[in-house]
């Protein structure tokens, strides 16, 4: 599990022209994100964890126990370039879906962040204050941005799953 995690971390630094992760590797990434603390063998607790969902703005959401963790995808972090500052919302801030809720500043630009869902911010990744590069180095794990409640689960249902997102990216690159 640790080896797969290490490989996963390596892969986010490759250019998007390399083939996407195999679905097996992607499932293991999901498992990695579901576990807090050290990665363990997947247990069979049901209803706790869902697969990654993606927005058209290249954000991902992972739901665990009713809380959504939000980050940006590998496509997004590649496009952004080196992140030098993460401007995040406040804990307690209430967000509507698509609200502007902050910005990631990179050498390329200040890119607005849009809330993927309606809900309240329950946590922000304070590691990013000292180490904004985590967004590039580990966009699906240590580079998470915020956690939020999910006021409208139907919004989550309308987001893209991994295969749909992969297709979406391909269509952009054409």
């Amino acid at each position, binding site marked *: 599990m640790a080896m797969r995690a290490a490989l996963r971390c390596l892969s986010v630094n490759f250019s998007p022209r390399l083939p996407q992760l195999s679905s097996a590797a992607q499932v293991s990434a999901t498992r990695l994100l579901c576990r807090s603390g050290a990665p363990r063998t997947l247990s069979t607790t049901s209803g706790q964890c869902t697969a990654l969902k993606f927005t058209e*703005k290249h954000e991902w959401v992972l739901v665990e126990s009713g809380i959504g963790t939000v980050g940006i995808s590998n496509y997004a972090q590649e496009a952004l370039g080196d992140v*030098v*500052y993460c*401007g995040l919302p406040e804990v307690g801030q209430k967000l509507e879906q698509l609200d*502007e809720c902050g*910005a990631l*500043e*990179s050498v*390329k*630009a*200040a*890119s*607005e962040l*849009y809330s993927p869902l309606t809900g309240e911010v329950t946590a922000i990744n304070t590691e990013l*204050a*000292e180490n904004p590069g985590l967004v590039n180095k580990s966009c699906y794990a240590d580079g998470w941005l915020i956690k939020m409640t999910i006021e409208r689960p139907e919004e989550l249902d309308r987001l893209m799953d991994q295969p749909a997102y992969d297709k979406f990216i391909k269509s952009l690159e054409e």
Partner: protein
Amino acid sequence: MLSHLRGTFCVLSAGVQRAWSSSSCLFMDPSSPGLVLQSQSTDVFQNLALEDWIDAHVDLQQRSILLLWRNRPTVVIGRHQNPWAECNLPAMRSAQVPVARRRSGGGTVYHDLGNLNLTFFASKKAYDRRRNLKVVTDALRRVRPQLDIQATDRLDILLNGRYKISGTASRLSRKSSYHHCTLLHSADRSAIAVLLRPSCPGIRSNATPSIPSPVTNLTDHAPSLQWEELLEAVVQQYSSEFGLTSSSQCVDPADEALFPGVGSMEAELRGWQWTFGKTPKFSVETQLELRDERPAARCSAQLQLEVKNGRVESCRVEVPATWLPERLSASLAQALLGERFCPHRAAAALSALLRCESGPLHSRLRNLCDVLVAAMG
């Protein structure tokens, strides 16, 4: 004089100025892949609001826009910067130079009427800062071929390989992008030296810092280059690069009929909440030098403050107990909690305390208050 300047700024091309009845007339000409606009305003907040408005409301998928603007003396900080760290707010208050926080990233710049701002609007797909800067460098080389003008990897434009005449910043939003840059024609360089220094000592912050560079004006090296000539060159180069045929149009960024909602965008940019309240959390640690009426009596104290969202979140004032009882310095620190990090607010909060304390300690307490207020920028 201002209206004369505005008139000069807009009298450029042969295009007839039309009274635009709505923005749809202005932006929806299907025959043109783009548009050049010149702002009639020299107010930084109106101009920044116009940028936001265009970014939010104009469909840039099939067209590009160049906006030309300049401001009365202003300091403009980047999206995630700390105004207290970047500029001398007390000096700016005396000189009536406002500070504005823009929505793009990057560092701090000084604007005045000798600095030309160019904003290149495009779709996210068409976002190409090098192409935009090439418009500027090609225009300059055309009008003054003897000048050594180069864009760097950092997307500055340097003159003679050394002096910065232009800096760049940009913003990417839902579907669109803007890239803006400065261009130093004839700005007041002495003001830059005075105003672009910290407001107060001891600031520790992870806000994005500025990278200071030696700057120069185009007119220092090409004294005959007129403002209008520079504008004309840029407009022509942009039109040729982006395939436009129409000439530039003047717009009033305060025209609510043309740009519905621009007024509230301007109000937000002008407000304390955006300008100061958006500052990333920072701390101030500095030594205070205290004295009282007796000339030889002095003392050093330590100030430690945390500022979040522009307000004092925590405050510690360590004064030797022999100088002032701890209860007094502690209540001063307490009085500042929750107040804006601002000398006026601090003075108001502390004056209430001062009124309560008379007797021999009053002058020392008053001195401590004065020194604290001065440490707040």
